[in-house]
């Protein structure tokens, strides 16, 4: 791959990064806090591409010196990027072609956020989030709390701080240990590579007949029923569902 082609790939890569980070698309892959750094990095890539192209255009032609290490005739000028200075031919690495892949991933494929498949592969990641005391629930009826918050209050606090309050949880439908639908949400600490599911079982008026990856809001109360996640032997708490509604996927699909 010569310098012009490298510049084009860098331009596409930088452009894809900037495009993903000014829209909400980057939220499918990384934390929100990375946005300014992503935009800055994309702009640097674009600048590097533009400068490379500018220098290529300005490059003196036909052996009048300049950057062409091999110097000499116009034939050599064509592949001056092979840098014959060390006496050995140097090929620009073939891995440069691989940089097209993330560009395709971002511009053409744009894969969705992690969903029920990833949730089924990994065990519920509750144990990493244990804290010693739980503040009172936020005001409101139902109190809107995260799936993670509900699950840790249910398991580690034995539901004490949940009490008799009605809570509202938002998550997607995944398949539970026994094939029944459960409520799941992926938590991220950095990027989707470390995404781990938090799972909550549903009893009572549980949503039925929904495909996996459908987003729902469930309103319900604490119940002491639990089940063990066969993947990592961790406890999955249940919520006693009173009502539920199907919703569009939220902008921020991770917690």
């Amino acid at each position: 791959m010569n310098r012009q082609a490298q510049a084009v790939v860098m331009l596409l890569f930088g452009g894809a990064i900037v495009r993903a980070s000014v829209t909400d698309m980057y939220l499918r892959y990384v934390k929100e806090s990375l946005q300014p750094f992503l935009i800055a990095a994309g702009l640097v890539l674009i600048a590097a591409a533009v400068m490379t192209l500018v220098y290529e255009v300005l490059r003196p032609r036909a052996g009048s010196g300049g950057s062409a290490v091999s110097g000499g005739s116009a034939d050599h000028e064509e592949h001056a990027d092979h840098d014959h200075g060390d006496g050995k031919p140097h090929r620009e690495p073939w891995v440069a072609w691989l940089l097209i892949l993330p560009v395709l991933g971002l511009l053409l494929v744009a894969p969705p956020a992690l969903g029920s498949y990833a949730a089924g592969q990994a065990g519920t990641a509750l144990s990493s989030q244990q804290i010693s005391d739980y503040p009172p629930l936020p005001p409101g009826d139902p109190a809107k709390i995260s799936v993670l918050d509900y699950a840790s209050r249910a398991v580690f606090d034995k539901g004490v701080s949940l009490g008799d309050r009605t809570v509202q949880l938002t998550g997607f439908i995944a398949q539970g240990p026994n094939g029944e639908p459960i409520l799941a949400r992926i938590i991220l600490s950095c990027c989707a590579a470390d995404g781990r599911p938090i799972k909550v079982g549903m009893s009572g008026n549980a949503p039925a007949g929904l495909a996996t990856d459908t987003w729902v809001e469930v309103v319900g109360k604490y119940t002491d029923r639990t089940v063990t996640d066969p993947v990592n032997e961790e406890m999955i708490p249940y919520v006693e569902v009173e009502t539920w509604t199907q919703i569009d996927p939220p902008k921020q699909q991770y917690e």
Partner: protein
Amino acid sequence: MTAADRATAERVGPETSLPPPEDPHEPRRRIFGDRIGSVEILAVLLVLLVLFRGPVADAISDPRLQTWTTVFVSVMVQAVPFLVFGVVLSAIIAVYVPRSFWARALPRHPALAVPVASCAGVVLPGCECGAVPIAGSLIRRGVTPAAALAFLLAAPAINPIVLAATAVAFPNNPEMVVARGVASLFVAMIMGWLWLRLGKAEWIRLPHRPDIDGMPKARAFWASVRHDVVHAGGFLVLGAMAAATINVVVPERWLQTLADNPVLSVIALAVLAVLLSICSEADAFVAASLSQFSLTSRLVFLVVGPMVDLKLISMQTGVFGRRFASRFAPATFAICILAGVGVGAVLL
């Protein structure tokens, strides 16, 4: 590599060593090469992909492939700011910091330069993708390889952001932060000194980059940025693909059976750290969620991860050469396990 590239490669060979022999086919091949360069191949490739966008999207609608693509893209997106930061810093080192600076900044004796360089890693807040081009740049600028390698290992493992993330991830075990910092510092220094005793300079083959010494500074800066993005970035893609594959293919259930055996659990998490290639700022959270494993084996996971993993091995191969990576990575891996277990036995 495409056919035209290969043709270019073949064509370059003879020109450099000997004057090209009078070959009747030579003009024809050159015309072919002139007309179809990598820009044209790239253009055709992109046009084809845009045209066949629908079928391509259908082909990856399988949930496994879709998860693979999501993880691959997210590893790349996550790494880009760190990669670009590292590449820019390494270009600044290459172009704007005079060689004499390093002679003054580091102790003259290489054995003393190693611990100084390890501790200098503390101040660089970034993950491992940025450290590789910086270390390459340091070696080019005449820093002793032992010190540059110690910096390469220490910088992603013990910087303030990573240690803070570890503290957040292990709220009930603050000793984990100390253990991680101490064990990582040990490994960086041991590897630096080991390089002084056993390392051979010819193992490191930095890719030849455009001779930037004679260029105007701004031009040299952008040449260095382009070169490093293509080298380190290309190998980062390779590493991200490997990490995404492991993420999708290896089910967590397998780990469960290994967690009960103290020796196997250490080895299992050390290998997992290499395979998963998680960024050093996030690995503490993953380690925290592997609660069925002992604290010592999770410490080993945290020590190995920032120093040896698939994307790092791939990037080190690209920046330092294959002969270097094939020796450096296994040695670092072994020292990481020993240091992790040793520090774990004392502190945890």
